[in-house]
């Protein structure tokens, strides 16, 4: 059978359409997601036309109430999917996400479930400065009760989003601005990808790179370059940060003895810090060299192109990091 090649954006839309068709409790809410704008990144194009404005709701600019209303609907029988137009703006809804959505199941002794998905785009690279470019996925890792998914390919985007929608837990579903137009093979039929299952995006034997979202692409490019230098790189994409598939990462480290972790968020207290800590705690004996992290320096995101380029990790920096630890221990 011919598997169609579609964009990450279209893959997300397919997941939304399939789930909305088969479950009338699934509905969308967010700013400008309806027929007048189709979502800031056009993920929801055509959905208001198919499902009506009751189920594809344009909201006022009220992030806190968007998530709060989604929580209220989720604990009373609906399965809301809230879109926050830019990941940076989840900050406005942080109480509803971290203190309400995340804690309701636990705090009320398991009486209520919060089947809520929060879709939001992260990432820099398009020169829209400090309020529209951050990668804040680590914030949500720090809050027990939330799941965090972050697909890097169209295939993963569809499969993970369907799992998120069917989940009875609140899921922060991280998308990336530079991935929306990326194409990949996506089956038209129903499939899901379980949370907590990493994927080896490229096999290799000398160095393990663990990378997320857009950094998976850059790591794969770095791996191509390194192969020419005779270094065989394995690229592991966790696909969900919570739950995190430690086993796949540790198995890869056992094989290669070298670990580079790549993420676009800030280095301090970030995704790379958590993964490095896990490996230091549970698999340090398998390492032949110190762990190397390639992350964004601890600064806000600057506007000017040469400044932004300087701080967002790129393939050259990944190549350097791999070469450095290969020198240290082999």
């Amino acid at each position, binding site marked *: 059978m011919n598997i169609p090649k579609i964009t990450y954006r279209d893959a997300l839309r397919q997941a939304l359409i399939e789930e909305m068709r088969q479950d009338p409790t699934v509905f969308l809410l967010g*700013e*400008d997601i309806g027929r*007048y*704008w189709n979502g*800031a990144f056009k993920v929801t194009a055509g959905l208001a036309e198919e499902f009506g404005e009751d189920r594809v709701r*344009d*909201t*006022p*600019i*009220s*992030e*806190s*109430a968007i998530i709060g209303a989604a929580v209220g609907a989720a604990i009373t029988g609906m399965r809301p999917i809230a879109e926050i137009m830019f990941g*940076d*703006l989840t*900050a*406005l809804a942080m109480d509803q996400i971290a203190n309400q959505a995340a804690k309701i199941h636990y705090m009320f002794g398991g009486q209520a479930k919060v089947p809520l998905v929060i879709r939001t785009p992260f990432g820099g690279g*398009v*020169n*829209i*400065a*400090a*309020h*529209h470019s951050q990668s804040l996925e680590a914030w949500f890792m720090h809050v027990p009760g939330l799941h965090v998914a972050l697909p890097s390919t169209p295939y993963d985007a569809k499969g993970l989003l369907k799992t998120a929608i069917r989940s009875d837990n609140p899921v922060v579903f991280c998308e990336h601005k530079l991935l929306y137009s990326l194409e990949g093979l996506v089956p038209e039929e129903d499939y899901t990808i379980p949370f907590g299952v990493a994927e080896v995006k490229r096999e290799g034997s000398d160095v393990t790179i663990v990378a997320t979202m857009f950094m998976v692409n850059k790591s794969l490019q770095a791996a191509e370059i390194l192969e020419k230098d005779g270094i065989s790189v394995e690229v592991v994409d966790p696909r969900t940060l919570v739950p995190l598939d430690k086993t796949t990462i540790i198995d890869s480290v056992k094989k290669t003895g070298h670990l580079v972790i790549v993420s676009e968020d800030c280095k301090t207290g970030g995704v790379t810090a958590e993964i490095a800590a896990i490996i230091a705690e549970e698999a340090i004996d398998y390492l032949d060299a110190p762990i190397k992290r390639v992350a964004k*320096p*601890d*600064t*806000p995101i*600057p*506007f*000017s*192109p*040469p*400044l*932004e*380029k*300087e*701080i967002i990790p790129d393939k050259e920096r990944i190549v350097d990091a791999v070469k450095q630890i290969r020198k240290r221990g082999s």
Partner: protein
Amino acid sequence: MDLSKEKKIAMYQDMLKIRLFEEKVFELYGQNIVPGTIHLYAGEEAVAVGVCTNLRKEDYIVSTHRGHGHCIAKGARLDKTMAEILGKKTGYCKGKGGSMHIADFSIGMLGATAVVGAGIPIATGAGLSIKLRGTDQVAACFFGDGASNQGTFHEGVNMAAIWKLPVLFICENNLYAMGTHQRRVMLVKHVMERAVAYGIPGVCVDGNNVLEVYEATLEACKRARNGDGPTLIECKTYRRKGHSRWDPATYRPKGEVDEWLNKDPIQRMKKHLIVDGVFSESKLIEIEEEVMNSIEEAVKFALDSPFPQPEEALEDVYA
């Protein structure tokens, strides 16, 4: 209204400056010289100019993602504003802010925030500081119709009201927040009606008439400087173009667009000045040339300026 001839000329000139500046930004964007995105103020000039004509240098303003006009009206330099928009080292924020985050603290322009509604409590805080320091400054806060649906609006305006802070809340109601018409996200007809909920005066003016905006602000400034607290001023206006550079704004019906374009604030002021005998046509042409030259110089300055060095990205994180 006892507006001097000079003041009227200055207001006309400032509006024109903003319009022609924005047209230049639009043109440069089309040539791929402006990075990122832009939200133009064209069409809304009478609001910033009508408000800022009442402000002194030491008064404050707080701005938004659609902020170029606020900067210029408060007296920011065109060259450093343009340089910031182009991401140059010589820009107001050394290229770190860009179009959505221009600030000039030397003239009380406390910065543009791109988080819709975030400026409202910040203006309240500037008002609090004025009160604590015991000066007679005021803080004017610009925000959109869309922003008035944020929780920050409720919290910020209420707090300014209870503490009688010298703040002017200026709602630039251009009918839309991106593609969302006001009527789809609020049941009141005027944002101004919400003032009742906070026990403060609310006024609604034709935001495309600079003299009306001026007059309403004059009153609000008097109240604020007198210690009588904040005023909510809603200015009905319209953006000439889409929300941002690539938005064709097809969600706006043609009749509505035409109606508003006919109410152009600059053309109206021009007519007023000629009818009033303040100006001859030839004097107006002279002003236009002068403004155009200043913009050309600003563009040249910005284009000739260097980009920041990459390592500057790491500077300024802490004071």
